């Protein structure tokens, strides 16, 4: 069972709209990269317990390949572009010759993944920045392949009035047939949802 805190519907709606805009552009970049049409789920906007953040990825120990970007500017936060490891492997093998025994990914595969994550993160943030007229600068991207929770915890470390709950804007992007999937998780830094909401003319925070 997932533990969530209640969020006002108008606030969730506004943040979902932002997630939709950002992820829409990230999905287009993903589609171009894989050369396949993709479909996008309606973003989930939740105040979710730390322990349950990884549920949509298959649990805390699910092996995932992640590109991480720290966001700074008017809006600060943490952006993760995540693929289940087996899906990432399938995608990479369709783009480049298989790496053999190297674990978990070869340097070449990691750099392809980093490039893909970087493009998706940049599209996500620039479309969000254009829409809200707020600055959101991505850091240099960094790749990790490991247990989902060990990686996503990076988005939950900041001092937070919600204690052990995090505000997460999560969008799943699916590639039909190939069963590939990418997830984009945006963790606005605590209080940053207020800045985002104000830019939409919606008052107060979560």
């Amino acid at each position, binding site marked *: 069972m997932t533990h969530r805190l209640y969020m006002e519907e108008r606030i969730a709606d506004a943040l979902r709209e932002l997630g939709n805009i950002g992820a829409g552009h990230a999905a287009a970049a993903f589609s171009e990269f894989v050369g396949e049409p993709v479909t996008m789920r309606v973003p989930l906007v939740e105040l979710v*317990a730390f322990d349950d953040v990884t549920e949509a990825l298959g649990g805390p*120990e699910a092996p995932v390949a992640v590109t991480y970007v720290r966001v700074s500017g008017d809006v600060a936060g943490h952006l993760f572009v995540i693929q289940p490891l087996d899906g990432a492997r399938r995608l990479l093998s369709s783009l480049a010759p298989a790496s053999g025994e190297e674990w*978990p990914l070869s340097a070449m595969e990691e750099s392809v993944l980093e490039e893909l994550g970087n493009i998706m993160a940049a599209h996500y943030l620039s479309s969000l920045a254009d829409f809200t007229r707020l600055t959101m600068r991505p850091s240099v991207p*960094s790749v*990790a392949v490991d247990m*989902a929770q*060990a990686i996503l915890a990076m988005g939950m470390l900041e001092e937070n009035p919600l*204690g052990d709950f995090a505000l997460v804007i999560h969008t799943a992007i699916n590639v039909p047939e190939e069963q590939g999937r990418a997830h984009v998780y945006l963790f606005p830094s605590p209080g940053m949802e207020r800045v985002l909401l104000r830019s939409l003319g919606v008052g107060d925070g979560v």
Partner: protein
Amino acid sequence: MIHHVGMAELKIATEEHALRTFGLGSCVGLALYDEVAHIAGLAHIMLPASPNEAPQHVAKYVNTAVPRLASLMIERGAAKRRIRAKLAGGAQMFATLSGVDLMRVGPRNVEATLEALRSLGVPLVASDVGGSYGRTITLECLTGKLWIRSVQHGEYGI
């Protein structure tokens, strides 16, 4: 029975029971045990220092979690002089990132925990810290054995 310890949580268990916490990245898992009384405690700690002296989430911070875990064990019947510690986690999941304060959280968590154990007078008997990979850990309350599982290295005990 295995009891799950969540992020920013701590728990005590005894005898045949075990305590498990998943996916430690930069977080540290502190295991304390009394091998004679068969009482053990596990904390999943996220940050080195609390923003104030009495934070709402005691288990989230090293400076409040370590003394609380020890005192809960003593309340349950552990003898302070017999309590031993094992430590795991404290990785840097993104090895290539640097410069940003959050990136060094893992090593800082480890340093703060060692310091807190020293000031309590609890000896550290084994540790598996650092690196750039996640760990799931399981503590056997009867023996104090700590099992560490990672994606890359399988499972081993310390």
